[in-house]
């Protein structure tokens, strides 16, 4: 019962921090950009509209995941509220998992609201619904959980600025990790190849969750691929949370 209580508290804190103002911004941005894009583009308006919608949802939700995530632990330490929490019969494991669950809930509500706005605008503008976008939202949510876990790991031992730099860097690397496969073939030294291979498997491969193109262009999305991506994401999140707990347990709170 302790983890849900911390999670709910984290969710309330995110709401108090006006995270959901971003949704309002997204709504206005999408409404204006959809009109603008429709005016400027020639042909494939629905495709461009969906690209803008899904791209901005991706961008805004990643922003929420990074910048809310890095404050998770740091704020508690900075405001010394963590002493209050940990003085109660709450373990550090429960604290970290509770914080993660709270942010996961925040992201779920934010993503669901943006998805709802997206479907609404799409329907009003084009008269169609595009249910395949739900696949994109599902995988994006797993990607957001990875980013949150990453920021949780960094925020458990570093400052918010450094944590955000680390998380943003890993997010960007994760988006282009697919290039490592080609990069490896250009390396001549076996050691460099081993390092590149190790990095490829160690770093989060976020491109696996990017199915915007397949969804928008109505391209086939094999169930096996989706399940593999989801399983990869869940295992990766579990690994990162384990690491965050290990680091946080070793941290001395003064």
């Amino acid at each position, binding site marked *: 019962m302790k983890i849900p209580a911390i999670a709910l508290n984290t969710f309330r804190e995110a709401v108090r921090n006006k995270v959901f103002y971003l949704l309002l911004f997204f709504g206005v941005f999408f409404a204006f950009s959809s009109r603008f894009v429709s005016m400027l*583009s*020639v042909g494939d308006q629905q495709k*461009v509209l969906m690209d*803008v919608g899904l*791209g901005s949802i991706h961008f805004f939700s990643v922003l929420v995941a990074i910048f809310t995530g890095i404050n998770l632990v740091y704020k508690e330490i900075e405001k010394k509220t963590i002493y209050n929490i940990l003085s109660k019969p709450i373990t550090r494991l429960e604290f970290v998992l509770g914080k993660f669950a709270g942010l996961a809930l925040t992201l779920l509500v934010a993503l669901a609201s943006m998805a709802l706005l997206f479907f609404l605008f799409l329907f009003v503008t084009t008269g169609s619904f595009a249910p395949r976008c739900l696949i994109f939202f599902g995988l994006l949510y797993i990607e957001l959980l990875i980013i949150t876990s990453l920021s949780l790991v960094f925020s458990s031992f570093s400052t918010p600025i450094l944590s955000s730099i680390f998380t943003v860097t890993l997010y960007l690397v994760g*988006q282009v990790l697919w290039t490592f496969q080609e990069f490896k073939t250009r390396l001549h030294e076996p050691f460099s190849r081993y390092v590149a291979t190790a990095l490829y498997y160690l770093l989060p491969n976020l*491109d696996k969750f990017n199915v915007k*193109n397949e969804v928008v262009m109505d391209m086939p999305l094999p169930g096996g691929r989706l399940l593999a991506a989801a399983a990869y994401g869940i295992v990766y999140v579990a690994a990162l949370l384990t690491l965050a707990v290990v680091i946080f347990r070793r941290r001395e709170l003064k």
Partner: protein
Amino acid sequence: MQAKALALFVALTLTAGALQFHYDTRVEYFADRQAFVALPDGKTLKVLSFGYRNLVADFLFIWAIQFYSATHLTNRFDYIENIFNVITDLNPRFKAPYLVGSWIMGLEGGRYRMAIRLLEKGARNNPEEWIFEYDAGFYAYRDLKDLELAEKLFRQAAERPNAPPLIRRKWAHMVYMQDNLDYAFQLWKEIERSADDQLSRDSAFHHLYQIDFERDKQILKLAISEFRHRFGRNPAELDELRVRGILKEIPRDYQGRDYRYDPQSGTIQARRNYKWKSSY
């Protein structure tokens, strides 16, 4: 205090607007008639777009439309192939850039070979679409007058799934235009057999009539020439060719009627006259 700050804000905003207006009246934005566009190749931009390649392709496409609407830029066509290649490398299934890019290249820039290259790329990346090779075939036929290329492109378009009957007719017409009469006759016969609309049936009939006439005309011309060689005159009527043993039987038009023959000039005319070749 609050009201004063607000008033100051409004005053500063209006001043900024006035300065902008003052600046605009002294600057000729379109003075520069040359543009310089440096875009990395599609593969590099795919990496640099960090998972937003669709969005980058969309924005580049929208920018390209505006760029190619700036007709005062005299060297804008120097970059067109690279720009549209980058867009279509980023999102190979995005169909509009192939079509719009080829319109700009061909219809505005007169670069039809380039337009065809872009459309062929579209066809390679979207094998279920017939529109790219159809458009390309049209440029080859109408603008390049390259019937062989047009035939190849229309044939490829006709073989794509869901290709409308019009494309098969275009292909058969290209075969006819290259004087490959037997093959053209065979294709139009197939079209006539499989036609389920009046337009296809009429089109097939007109072509079959004309092809049949052109084949018969060749036979009759040779026979009349042979007759003239033997008897020093033109036959008085076509049946004389049969009577004198030059032809076993006199060919008739596609509807089974006699051709019109002028004994003075020795020329043959069909009752229907289609001028597709002479007007091309």
